[in-house]
């Protein structure tokens, strides 16, 4: 064994990594987003995507949806640390594989190409509720809603068909059925 020269222990084996969607209800006040994001960066957690907006103007509540990757311990820590923040009301945690939860992300895709390719591009998007937001004879802006991975794939495929710009919202989540998360 190599002799350790550190005053700290060496890292131990990492656990299994899972993708989780963390939903945080917060007071919509100055710097609340930076508190949440700072917690992630300060403690070395990942942020894969982030979506945030006010959801209840009267109660002054915002909803933050963070997609993160971590071991079960790290995910548990994220939850507990978030709950300690003063402006945080509640925290939800969903596994990506959870069948009872809907995850959706929206993307705007701009394609600059001839009409043939544009047609093909639209066809490729068919599965993901495409809405044409703008069209000229050499360009098109398509809105799609899909899963994160699906949009990843779409972007890869559409590159060949003239995709020049993509803008994505980051995932948002909602439970299925009549139940609401408490």
């Amino acid at each position, binding site marked *: 064994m190599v*002799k*350790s*020269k*550190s*005053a*700290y*222990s*060496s890292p*131990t084996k990492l656990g299994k990594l899972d993708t989780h969607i963390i939903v945080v209800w917060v007071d919509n006040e*100055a*710097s609340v987003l*930076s*508190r949440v994001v*700072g917690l992630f960066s*300060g403690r070395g957690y990942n942020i894969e995507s982030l979506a945030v907006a006010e959801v209840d103007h009267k109660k002054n509540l915002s909803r933050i949806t963070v997609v993160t990757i971590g071991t079960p*311990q790290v995910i*548990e*820590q994220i939850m*507990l*640390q978030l*709950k*300690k*923040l*003063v402006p945080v*009301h509640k925290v939800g945690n969903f596994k990506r594989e959870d069948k009872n939860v809907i995850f959706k992300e929206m993307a705007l895709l701009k394609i600059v190409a001839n009409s043939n390719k544009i047609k093909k591009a639209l066809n490729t998007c068919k599965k993901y509720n495409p809405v044409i937001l703008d069209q000229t004879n050499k360009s098109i802006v398509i809105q799609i809603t899909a899963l994160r991975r699906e949009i990843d794939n779409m972007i890869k495929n559409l590159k060949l068909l003239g995709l020049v710009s993509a803008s994505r919202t980051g995932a948002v989540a909602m439970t299925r059925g009549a139940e609401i998360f408490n």
Partner: protein
Amino acid sequence: MAKLYSGAEIVFKCLEDQKVEHIFGYPGGAVLPIYDELKNHPSVKHILVRHEQGAGHAAEGYARSTGKPGVVLVTSGPGATNVVTALTDAYMDSVPLVCISGQVPTHLIGTDAFQECDTTGITRPCTKHNWLVKDINDLPRIIHEAFEVATTGRPGPVLVDIPKDIQFAKAKYFKLKKEKKLKAKSPNKFNQKDIDQLVDLMKKASKPVFYTGGGVINSGPKASELLRELVFLTGFPITSTLQGLGAYPGDDNQFLGMLGMHGTYEANNAMHDCDLLINIGARFDDRITGKIDEFSPKSKKVHIDIDPSSINKIVKVDLSIVGDVSDVIKSITKNIKKKNLNLVKSNKQKISKWWQQIQKWRKKQSLNFINSDTVIKPQHAVQRLYELTKNQDTFITTEVGQHQMWAAQHYKFNKPNRWMTSGGLGTMGYGLPAAVGVQVAHPKKLVIDIAGEASILMTMQEISTAVQYNLPIKIFILNNQYMGMVRQWQELLHEKNYSESYSEALPDFVKLAEAYGCVGIRAKNTDELDEKIEEMINTDKPVIFDCHVDQAENCYPMIPSGKPHNQMLLGPKDQEEKKITRKGKALV
């Protein structure tokens, strides 16, 4: 119509309502309206420090020795950035601090104005919460909320940033409301089932150990009394973290001494071999656990903590009990007394073998050192200091390094709130200002900062504060002319390459003391030590005691990095006896 008060007046009205008696601070442009108001509020005494870091540490010492929150008042920009170290220190060691900082006027925020900095941005990761007051009407609510956040749950520092125009602006004042919202609810999230389960584990255990920490101190003096009762009732051995010292009497037979990197042989081996580990208000810090994979491998682990995020953060536990330590211990004791009256008897027999094993470990006398007739050994100096001060109620603060560990090993604490040290952050320069804060809170008590000559130079200026307010603190410097802990690591791990760890060009501490207007005492050999210590204790003025100690002394026992508890490195005596010097070195 209700009377209108200026922002500065509101600050003091809040402080008065919160029964704040002392604030530690340093004036500057952006807090002048608050300083102007100071004269109208005689119940709030201001202690002028010499550097804002000193204000922070003094407030920490004040808070740790009283259980009340420490209050700090600093100006914008450099005032705020200077206090960051103290805030981080308080955050790591869960010390309640309320820091009020001035800020440039609202309309100048973001323009890089003179002495402007993003105070709330800079202090966000090192406070429990912070506020930038943008509307005067929010000010009373925010300050009261700040005190509540700082003192409830797991205590910690908070900061309120008040722009200068808000300090001038006028608003109504609202007294603090008793019924509070959201987070004020009880921290206790355990139920009877958890307690039953714990008592059941305690009944079954044959090698149990209590591992207690700063949470017991933070829970108030009552928690320490309850802990003593519980430990006595069960007959279990108990060990403590650095921050927990004093919660249980250090000279009691059931106490195994401190555990961790420089803990005793018996405490660490008990942690490693136990079958039930009951953590009360400690956080499995990496200086405690050593190698996580091999940490206490055979034990059921129970964690009692007020902070849910401490649980399973580092060590996975079998049973977690989230709640205030006092309340939890009370429930446990009640449960034992009620249903398990025979637990004590049956247990004593069951764990008698365990105690025999512990006695064997104790025989190693791991804190022993080879004393000398001529040169003063630092351990000997701490022992003598303890013997000569133990008959009075003494408060000890420390800096960070070897002297800190020797103080923790050889000074025995019998009461909580008597031991102030920077554990989590390890801030050199903590002890002198902390002693100032302690002495402010306890003007008649003996307050000693056990220091190193390198640490003390980091916040030396605060001796001036002590002189100004007639605070007779005693600075007991174990002077080995080295950053001792750095030197020790370099000796053991970096082939004795003592890179930059020699304290070159040291001041003459006796002359320095005289220059500051306090008393300087020097001890160079063992014969004169006791007499000089007595002289220090009997001097009713701040004293700098320059104690020249053995330069080469290392702090043992020690768990080398990345090793588990049962692979400790013992002192030179043991190494000689066993002739394993070489092997012992390879262990490192």
